[in-house]
């Protein structure tokens, strides 16, 4: 018999579990980031980096999670394209959505953004003059807030982030509810509830993230 990782449901379950792990990360990340509104980002960053084991463990786990998710997403998508080689002359979609039909594209946009995002704020090589590692705040801490605020005052950088967030919200509007169905937690009664709450959760996350670059662009949060 096939192995778990070669089976259609097994691969889907891996996609769902890794997706949920990333959703969990994304929730923690937005909570951490929102300390910028109470002038707490530098303190948060310093405390986080005083726990190198936690930081590196998270990074390693996320690396494994993301690689698994991307590997299987490409494999599954290619298989699915092969299974439907001919299109209808007329096609009416009854239940699927723009979000559900474009998971691979929203996902790949997020993937490309992730590389940019790491170069920008983790490795800090996009605008080295603003790098937190080289600029200390009044308390002698790496000035993460300055790096973020000056970064987002650049309209094009903010636009890159906002576009990636649009891809993320589309990915999660379908992804969150889909992952619950994949791991088998649905019945007739819960399905519509999960679909709605998954979409709401995705939109709440989107608002949480997008509020940072927009409030900097609108000068509500200043450096």
């Amino acid at each position, binding site marked *: 018999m*096939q192995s778990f990782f070669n089976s*259609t449901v097994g*691969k889907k379950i891996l996609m769902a579990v890794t997706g949920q792990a990333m959703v969990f990360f994304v929730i923690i990340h937005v909570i951490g980031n929102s300390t910028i509104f109470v002038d707490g980002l530098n303190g948060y960053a310093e405390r986080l980096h005083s726990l190198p084991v936690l930081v590196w463990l998270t990074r390693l786990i996320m690396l494994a999670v993301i690689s698994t998710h991307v590997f299987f997403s490409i494999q599954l998508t290619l298989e*699915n394209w092969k*299974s439907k080689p001919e*299109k*209808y002359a007329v096609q*009416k979609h009854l239940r699927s959505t723009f979000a559900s*039909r474009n998971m691979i594209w929203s996902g790949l946009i997020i993937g490309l953004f992730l590389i940019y995002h790491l170069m920008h704020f983790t490795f800090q090589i996009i605008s080295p003059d603003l790098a937190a590692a080289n600029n200390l705040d009044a308390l002698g801490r790496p000035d993460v807030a300055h790096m973020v605020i000056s970064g987002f005052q650049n309209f094009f950088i903010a636009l890159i982030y906002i576009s990636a967030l649009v891809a993320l919200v589309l990915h999660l509007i379908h992804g969150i509810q889909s992952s619950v169905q994949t791991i088998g937690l649905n*019945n007739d009664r819960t399905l519509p509830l999960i679909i709605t709450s998954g979409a709401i959760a995705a939109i709440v996350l989107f608002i949480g993230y997008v509020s940072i670059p927009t409030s900097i662009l609108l000068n509500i949060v200043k450096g």
Partner: protein
Amino acid sequence: MNLTLYVWRQQSSELQGRMEKYYAQGISPDMSFLEMLDMVNEDLIKNNAEPIAFDHDCREGICGTCSQVINGVPHGPEERTTVCQLHMRHFHDGDTVYIEPWRAKAFPVIKDLIVDRSALDSIIQAGGFISVHTGGVSDANSFLIPRSDAETAMDAAECIGCGACIAACPNGSAMLFTAAKVTHLAMLPQGRPEAKRRVCMMTEEMLTKGFGNCTNHYECQAACPKGIKVSFIAKLNREFIKAAQLIKEE
């Protein structure tokens, strides 16, 4: 009623097909969609043209043989209705109607609107059965089955195997079909002993036959003429998780 039809014509699986235009004239709103096509075919035969080949058998919505995508929807615009039970009163005089065969790699076109659905039989043969000794019928109530379980099994057993779920699925996945069979048998005590093997073998066969993976578009449930629900796919996924131990052992 008079209609303009665009119908997929294809001589054989090897040859290229294309949409061709036909006129259906003098159609009564009381006719079924297939009777409308019968009328068109009569005209074609009178004019020495090749009639449109389409699959049909019972014409009462129970055999699952009829299979046409009408204006982009498998079995046409009426919910929970097979093509044979679709009546022309749901169309209007002057309408343009597009008629295409089921589309999926696992369903090659044999001719015109007829596709080869034997891949569904292979999925059933891989595990959609219960291995029991034949013999005398056992006494009623010798197996106690909770009513709600019996109802769920019956709901799943409503699948007529027409393949509309695969035709509707953007991935050409047969998950709804497979999940209906898996659920139907997994809900009953007679089906439990082979439940783990069944879910593994049937999903594996599904991929082998060229069907796609499920990505939860739920397009299948919307197209199903029998209202088979995607909650059965969640049930299949649960059965698969329970079977994970078996996969490790073998």
